[in-house]
């Protein structure tokens, strides 16, 4: 019962803040609500007994990515910050498409017959994740490491600009 209340609370926070991210006109406010969304999602992970990922969510999204986005805003936005996050001409069409997609997803989910397992969740996921990453998923794990390295180098190169002494 408690968990039901908490779920709905978190769900409302997530949905509301996500809508704010999209609907607000000030991009800094959008970024702040984005952090709220991330934190809410992190709470959802806790409810799903994914303790490690909840921590990662907080660290990576709410910590790193949100800060990165704020830096991006800071470095690029010109003019009045109050009107820095406007809609383009597809506002209405995109809304119809998104709504249609949501309805479709919802119908499909509700009409699906899923095999619910009644086994208890793992006490702690850190150990099993470590085992999985270093055994079955070791190659994707290494590939992800290389991807991060490449992304880092690429980001530095792109952001630095070419040839110009900074």
């Amino acid at each position, binding site marked *: 019962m408690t968990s039901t209340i908490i779920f709905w609370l978190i769900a409302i926070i997530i949905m509301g803040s996500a809508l704010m991210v999209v609907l607000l006109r000030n991009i800094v406010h959008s970024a702040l609500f984005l952090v709220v969304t991330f934190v809410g999602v992190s709470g959802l992970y806790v409810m799903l007994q994914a303790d490690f990922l909840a921590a990662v969510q907080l660290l990576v999204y709410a910590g790193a990515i949100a800060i990165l986005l704020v830096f991006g805003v800071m470095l690029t936005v010109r003019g009045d910050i109050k009107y820095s996050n406007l809609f*383009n001409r*597809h506002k209405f*069409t*995109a809304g119809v*498409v*998104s709504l*249609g*997609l949501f309805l*479709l997803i919802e*119908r*499909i989910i509700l*009409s699906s017959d899923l095999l619910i397992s009644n086994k208890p969740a793992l006490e702690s996921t850190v150990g099993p994740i470590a085992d999985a990453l270093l055994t079955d998923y070791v190659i994707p794990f290494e590939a992800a490491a290389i991807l991060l390295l490449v992304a880092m180098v690429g980001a530095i190169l792109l952001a630095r600009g070419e040839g110009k002494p900074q």
Partner: protein
Amino acid sequence: MFWIDNAWLIPIFPAIAFVLIIFVTKKVKMLSALTALAAMATSMMFSIGILFTILGSHGEINMNAPIEYSVPWLTIPGVHITAGVLIDPLTAVMLCVVTIVAFLVQLYSVGYMADDPGFSRFFAYLSLFTFSMLGLVVANNYFQMFFFWELVGLCSYLLIGFYFYKNSAADANKKAFVTNRVADFGFMIGIFFLWLVFGTFNFQELAHAIEGYGNVGFLTLVAVLVFIGPVGKSAQFPLHVWLPDAMEGPTPVSALIHAATMVAAGVYLLARGFVLFNAAPSALLLIAYIGGFTSIFAASIAIVQDDIKRILAFSTLSQLGYMVMAMGVGSITAGMFHLTTHAFFKALLFLGAGSAIHAVHSNSIFDMGGLYKNMKTTTWTFVIGSLALAGIFPLAGFWSKDEILLVTKEGGFTGLYIIGTIVAFLTAFYMFRLIFTAFFGEKRSDHHAHESPWTMTVPLMVLAVFAIFIGFVGAPFVEHGFASLIYFGEPHHATPDYFLMISSTLIALAGIVLAWYMYGKKAVDTEALKQRFLPIWTLLYNKYYIDEVYQWFFDKIVLNIGNAFNWTDRKVVDGIADGFSDLIRATGARLRFVQTGSMQTYALVLFAAVVLIVLWMAVPVLGGM
């Protein structure tokens, strides 16, 4: 048998000479001439060797038992074409005629063309021509013959247009080419019909096949189609128009190609394929009457022309008509005999005319006059040639022309016999009109005529000897003469018809006397005569306006049809094609605005499509929501 076994080499020698002249000796004039002459002499030696082998074989190699060998030329499933050599007396005689005349003409050309900048080119073309002509003569099937038939047409084109910088020459060679093309098309369709029905091009296989074939209507059609080839190549009415214009070429070319050999190829084809024509009597009748008509038609034009080469050209037309007529009445003996004798004396006449032109630098007989004083050899050889052509006993033309008149008379073609006799009279008249005007009489223009160099006079004398004596090979009283050599079916030995001999000689003499009376003695005022019969004179002088009729036909009808097709092609066919391209271009011009360049638009469209596609796929699963 050595000569016959190596007969395939005969056309090869001039071909080698052609390649050598083009690629090696072009810069050195005399070397080019020597190459061509050496090749010709070798071919001539082989040809004479073959003729004597056949004569010495005591009838083992005859018209019904030729020697043939071949190699595969084109072998694809369903089609087997060979390149080969067919040696029988007909081939042998033709080979000798071609090689001897060609050799003499080339020798003559050394002198005649001496100052021409295109000297080596001329000899290269002549060699190419002799290669083609000899290849045509030895051919053992229609396909090979057609191949070389086209090649001689090409050489004719090249040589008529030898002075290509002259507009008249360029026009003349185009005319010759196009006219021949028309004729060759009929010929081609004819031999393809033969192929379709009999499945072979080979002369001998066709001969066997045709003998047992009953559909005379089809054979008549094929025979007429094949005959269209000779109508063009041998310049029979109504495709004769190219030959007079072909005189734009150098005179040796006229002598070799347009008098002695190439134009005779049509007659040769008639003889070679005679099995076919013999099986189609109506076609044969057509051939006979076309030949007869051409002979009198051309002879009547010749009596008023003033260009020496054109007179000879119309004379050639007339004589070719004789040969075709002889073929048509069923005697290849008479036709081929006249072809042989005519080749020599007509080549002689052309070379003599060339010698006169060379001296006077004009083609008009009225510019010449009195040439005999300074040009003895030319004059007397020319007179011999003319007597031979006119058919005066005992020169070559007498025997061969009598043979033709005899077969028309014996065959019961009285009309053709009368035409032949009138032509004989006209021939004598126009030839001696030419002689009395050009070689005797007063000097009319300011020319310094001089005798030509020995390279030119020697061929004249050799040909004059031939013109006198060649006729004896076919004289009626000669045992194992021409008639026992070349025949169709069984040899047919003509009995001398003294009435015919005497009457034709008298008629020819009458023509000569009339010519002397009008042009030698000038007892008749020719100018007044001309004025009196002006309409007829104009008609004859303008060659019955055949050229003008053709010109009108092409200008008014062919061009208009062409324009109509042109219009259809441009407006309708191109219109449809252009319409499609315009439609696509217009569509593209509008569709390109779909490509906005905005990634978000693309993403939007993509997701909208995903929604629609998933919806469409999910409807059966969701069961109507």
